[in-house]
């Protein structure tokens, strides 16, 4: 039986549209998405979403309301199952993993509408997120074995240390729901950090903050990146914050990336201006 010779496969180099900060260029991106997309019924909410985020990058995601920014966060944390495409977290495909597993693999997030455990104390909110690192059996807890006390003390110290990023130690015993709005937003960040992420997703961290709180938050986001050496991806409408600290910015409109680059690239990009301000009248 003679085989018909197979035509030779022609290889085409793929131009990648991803950007990374120079210091992260030779490292594996902590997050990479390939042709990520999701349909809700007949509506394609996100399509062909390709990004790479370096291990110490601060990336920003902006776009008009309803562009699909929060949907992307929900996709990245496997709250939604993508219709198409792949998510690679530190090179590992997260498909089929539960939300809990994705968190343990290294993605932590905050929420646009604050979702703290309001009835629990500030400290307990952080301790819950530290759960995976606090190991003792239920039995040793009931019998109050030294093991329990030791682990609890380590967890408590760690929680206090994390709270100290935002100088929140004095609030530790208050119910989270009773905190002022800005403090609740900060606590959400602390709680997310407590899960020991390699990628932190912040959904509108500056929403409802006044300019001085926002500028303090900007310093703190950079400080978190520097101290923990993690990647941060944020959604934000406050352009001062985005332009001020994000190294790479992606602009989303109707579920598609329309522009990617540094703040200067974005500000001069005609597509972005069109998305935000509308088309220039002809003539």
């Amino acid at each position: 039986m003679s085989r018909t010779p197979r035509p030779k496969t022609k290889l085409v180099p793929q131009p990648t549209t991803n950007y990374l900060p120079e210091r992260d260029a030779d490292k594996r991106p902590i997050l990479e998405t390939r042709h990520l997309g999701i349909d809700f019924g007949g509506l394609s909410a996100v399509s062909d979403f390709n990004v790479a985020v370096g291990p110490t990058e601060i990336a920003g995601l902006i776009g008009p309301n309803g562009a699909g920014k929060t949907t992307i966060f929900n996709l990245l944390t496997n709250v939604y199952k993508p219709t198409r495409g792949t998510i690679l977290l530190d090179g590992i495909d997260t498909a089929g993993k539960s939300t809990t597993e994705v968190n343990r693999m290294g993605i932590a997030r905050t929420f646009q509408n604050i979702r703290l455990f309001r009835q629990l104390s500030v400290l307990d909110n952080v301790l819950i997120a530290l759960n995976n690192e606090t190991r003792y059996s239920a039995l040793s807890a009931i019998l109050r074995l030294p093991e329990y006390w030791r682990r609890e003390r380590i967890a408590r110290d760690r929680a206090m240390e994390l709270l100290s990023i935002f100088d929140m130690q004095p609030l530790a015993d208050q119910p989270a729901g009773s905190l002022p709005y800005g403090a609740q937003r900060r606590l959400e960040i602390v709680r997310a950090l407590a899960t020991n992420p390699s990628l932190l997703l912040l959904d509108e961290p500056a929403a409802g903050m006044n300019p001085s709180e926002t500028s303090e938050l900007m310093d703190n986001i950079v400080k978190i990146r520097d101290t923990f050496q993690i990647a941060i991806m944020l959604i934000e409408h406050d352009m001062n914050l985005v332009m001020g600290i994000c190294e790479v910015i992606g602009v989303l409109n109707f579920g598609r990336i329309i522009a990617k680059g540094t703040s200067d690239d974005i500000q001069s990009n005609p597509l972005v201006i069109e998305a935000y301000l509308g088309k220039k009248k002809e003539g």
Partner: protein
Amino acid sequence: MSLFFSQFLNGLQTGSVYALVALGYSMVYGIILLLNFAHGDIIMVGAYAAFYSMTAFHLHPLLSVVLAVAASTLLGVVIEKVAYTPLRQAPRLSLLITAIGVSFLLENGAQLLFGSETKSMSPIVTGNVSLGSMSISKVALLTIAVTVAAMAILTFLVQRTKLGKAMRAVSEDMGAAQLMGISLNKTISFTFAVGSALAGIGSVLYLCAYTQASPTMGSMLGLKAFVAAVLGGIGSIPGAMIGGFAIGLLEALCSAVNLSVWKDGVVFAILILVLLVKPTGIMGRSQAEKV
């Protein structure tokens, strides 16, 4: 005065069992918003486990207690895994109907296995303790003491341990809890295990007081405990404790004024009243809608 005191103790004793069972209802509702109607029947299984290990196998009463609690705990976790876990994404009504189905399964399975007649045994704890002019039955004292101890352990478990905190976190915001790395399966199983263990303790205490077991003993007891949970505020742990004792005392009050025939009616009238006047119960948190 002595009549009042003895009825008060009676009330606390029945109330203890109601409270222990109500805790299971409330904890499960708090975490997956399911009215676990099979919960009452877990008591029945626990009671049979204690009954047979004492009468047929002549085990030491304390060992029988451990066996009964272990059997209830295991049953609770198995029911959750087999019947409820596959329905986690399903509408809540399907879950509720499944719970009723499991309840029927357990009741009829028990009739098949143990026979439909009531099984009686000789009392385990007998005698009275005299306190001045009054005498108190040891069973009542034991029941109240065990219940208080169980509640103290539960409170510690829920307030101080990481699983307890995870439980409270999941009951407040399941989605956010998952995103904080809390394992849903583990937390829900833990909740069922603790709730069922309390029911197991309740079943043994019930057996001490009434010395009999029947396949349908769990349904009325379960329903009254459910009323107790609603009265206390379903989903609230301290509420379930208060509700249980309140229902027990109310029943004792009915007996004290010679209305013991009306006991059940009064309890369910309370359910209707609570649902009409304060659906969140005594300790329930009101669901404030964000505007």
